[in-house]
């Protein structure tokens, strides 16, 4: 038994940390958020150059074949810095769906994602089907006409291709759709954590037979697999947030003076910060367990990802709320980073099944 990261993994983390520290401060992020852009194009280019956009793809798709451990490292660091670039949407949701599929044109699409030149989104959610992703109402007719509405399509506005879940002849399907095709319309929204998502409506959209990525059990297994990986990734992001929440709060209480002393002298605050520390360490432990189970493709991998997601759903928000409380009024100021962790925690809990949903998976 050895739970140390490899040298390669440590280097990856340092590389990402270096970027986050030197080129991604909170004020720069705020500028992007307040602009018309959904993310920083230069950052996205740099992600591609560093190989971060391709690292998790298989070697035959032009990637490095990195697994859930490396993705967890990346998302943990992104969580600490509250990175808004559409990594989850492109690489994890759309990219790994394609990579794990037998789709004939997957390599060119994955190359598009890897080079940063193409955005692809996965349309898996529907308003009336909260967390029930395998029974969409969106329908593909016998004549291959797609009808339905997909919501919460992350980064949908920027996508030049969509992967849409639908039902054809009672069978679950994953199909590739061009958002510029006739019959496709969308509205784009900001998310609570400063990303964007779109609601797409499909009206008699033509889908060619060779645009079917997967069908039947193959398609549903594929989606379940990808969503489990995505759940792991956003949970790792939450672990990063939890670590930052407690570290930044400790730092702040050492600097903030009231009653002629640093407020970190007060035991009631100390114990609350210890609780934050413990919850983040436990979250890290559950992350280790989950990513190792996913990495070894064990039967229990879904269960352990659910355990992690349930924990960060509950304690992530608690950590962020405590961080705000201990920062006092500064904690609720928009210009301070600390309050934004709470928004990320809300987003993480809401995505792919909230804490209650995942608890039921375990019970």
């Amino acid at each position, binding site marked *: 038994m050895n*739970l140390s990261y490899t040298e390669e993994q440590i280097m990856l983390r340092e590389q990402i940390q270096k970027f986050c520290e030197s080129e991604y401060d909170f004020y720069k992020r705020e500028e992007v958020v307040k602009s018309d852009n959904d993310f920083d194009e230069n950052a996205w280019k740099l992600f591609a150059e560093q190989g971060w956009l391709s690292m998790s793809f298989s070697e035959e798709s032009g990637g490095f074949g990195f697994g859930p451990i490396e993705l967890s490292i990346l998302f943990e660091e992104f969580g600490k810095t509250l990175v808004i670039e559409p990594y989850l949407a492109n690489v994890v949701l759309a990219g790994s769906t394609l990579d794990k599929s037998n789709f004939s044109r997957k390599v060119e699409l994955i190359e598009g994602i890897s080079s940063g030149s193409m955005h692809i989104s996965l349309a898996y959610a529907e308003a009336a089907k909260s967390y029930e992703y395998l029974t969409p109402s969106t329908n593909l007719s016998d004549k291959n006409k797609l009808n339905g509405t997909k919501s919460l399509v992350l980064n949908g506005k920027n996508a030049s291709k969509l992967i849409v879940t639908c039902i054809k002849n009672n069978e679950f399907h994953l199909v590739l759709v061009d958002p510029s095709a006739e019959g496709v319309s969308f509205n784009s929204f900001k998310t609570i954590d400063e990303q964007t998502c779109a609601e797409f409506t499909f009206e008699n959209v033509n889908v060619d037979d060779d645009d079917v990525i997967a069908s039947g059990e193959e398609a549903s297994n594929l989606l379940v697999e990808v969503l489990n990986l995505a759940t792991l990734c956003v949970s790792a992001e939450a672990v990063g947030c939890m670590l930052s929440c407690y570290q930044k709060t400790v730092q702040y209480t050492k600097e903030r003076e009231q009653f002629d002393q640093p407020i970190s002298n007060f*035991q009631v605050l100390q114990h609350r910060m210890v609780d934050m520390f413990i919850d983040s360490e*436990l979250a890290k432990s559950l992350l280790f367990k989950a990513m190792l189970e996913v990495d070894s493709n064990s039967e229990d991998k879904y269960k352990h990802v659910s*355990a992690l997601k*349930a*924990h960060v759903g509950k304690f992530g928000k608690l950590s962020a709320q405590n961080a705000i409380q201990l920062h006092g009024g500064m904690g609720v100021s928009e210009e301070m980073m600390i309050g934004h962790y709470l928004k990320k925690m809300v987003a993480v809990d809401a995505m792919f099944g909230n804490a209650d949903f995942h608890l039921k998976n*375990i019970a």
Partner: protein
Amino acid sequence: MDINFSKEDLAFRDELRDWLANDYPKHVKDKMDKGEHLTRQDMVDYHKALSAKGWMGYNWPVEYGGTGWSATQLYLFNKEFGMAGCPPLLAFGVSMVAPVIWTFGNEEQKKRFLPDILDFNTWWCQGYSEPGSGSDLASLKTKAVREGDHYVVNGSKTWTTLAQNADWIFLLVRTDSSGKKQEGISFLLVDMKTPGIEVKPIITIDGDHEVNSVFFTDVKVPVENLVGEEGKGWTYAKFLLAHERFGIAAVGASMRALGQLKEIVSELDNPDLDKKVAEMEIAISALEMTELRLLSDLENGGHPGAESSILKIKGTEIQQGLTELFVEAAGEYALMYPGAGGYGSNDKPSGPEHAAVSLERFLNFRKTSIYGGSNEIQKNIISKFVLGV
């Protein structure tokens, strides 16, 4: 990263399981499985069976007759025995006073005391807490005055676990009151048969007689029973407390309890309780992985420090939380305690069999967040050494 244990460690685990299947004294196992009380003799039999296998010195170096086990072997030992429902090993001799004796004691003391601890010929108890000194242990007042070749001890100790069974007590006493309170403390080894020692039971809310008050009136202790130097006892006391943490996470025992709880709850059709059990399962998994992370760190030459306080805090919260869920599972039969046989009886009152045991454990386990450095003290330790505030 590799979460799997090595072939050697797995072979070691098989050896543990083999002992548990074949050599774990059956009369002890039967009582433990039914949640019944053990007698003094049961405990002696259990410990002597381990001595016979050569495992009593589980955390001792080989030179004193110990196993010399690695941190991973110790972890597996604790986990497997916990999962098998064994009684927790009495720590007072083997893992508390013994390391103090071999580290700070003289050759004569090592020869005199260590073999009997290893063979479980002497039952030790711990004379630390006093009525006025709990978390603030260094404020202790029990006094030892040197008179010729004896110390004369006067004062009292409290919460002394199983003193009624003990042959010897290790004692923190004040030999000097002139300086700082941490100075002037000495570490004495005292035969419980010495005249002037009186043990009085303290009955806890579960009705059990587990802890005691121990009174010392002009108790004469030979000076050769002083460990190390006079006045340096506080150093030894703290050293001992660091050894007390072994196995405090109790992951194995909690996993066993969780398994039993799930069986009970599966018959109840109570979704609210199901959810709480699921949360408990996650908490145990997180604790187990935290312990493994610390273990991996240790095996890779790291020195995990105050992080291990997490194991004490969460381990005991989980132990207590489990007992609470057993009580919830008992439903209205939570009323039926202690039942017709009275406190300390092995007679079960009416109602499901798990109900009576659950109440007793629930009440008894309140102690876990208090002993071994209360959980609030553990949070102070983390504040100081991890958060740096």
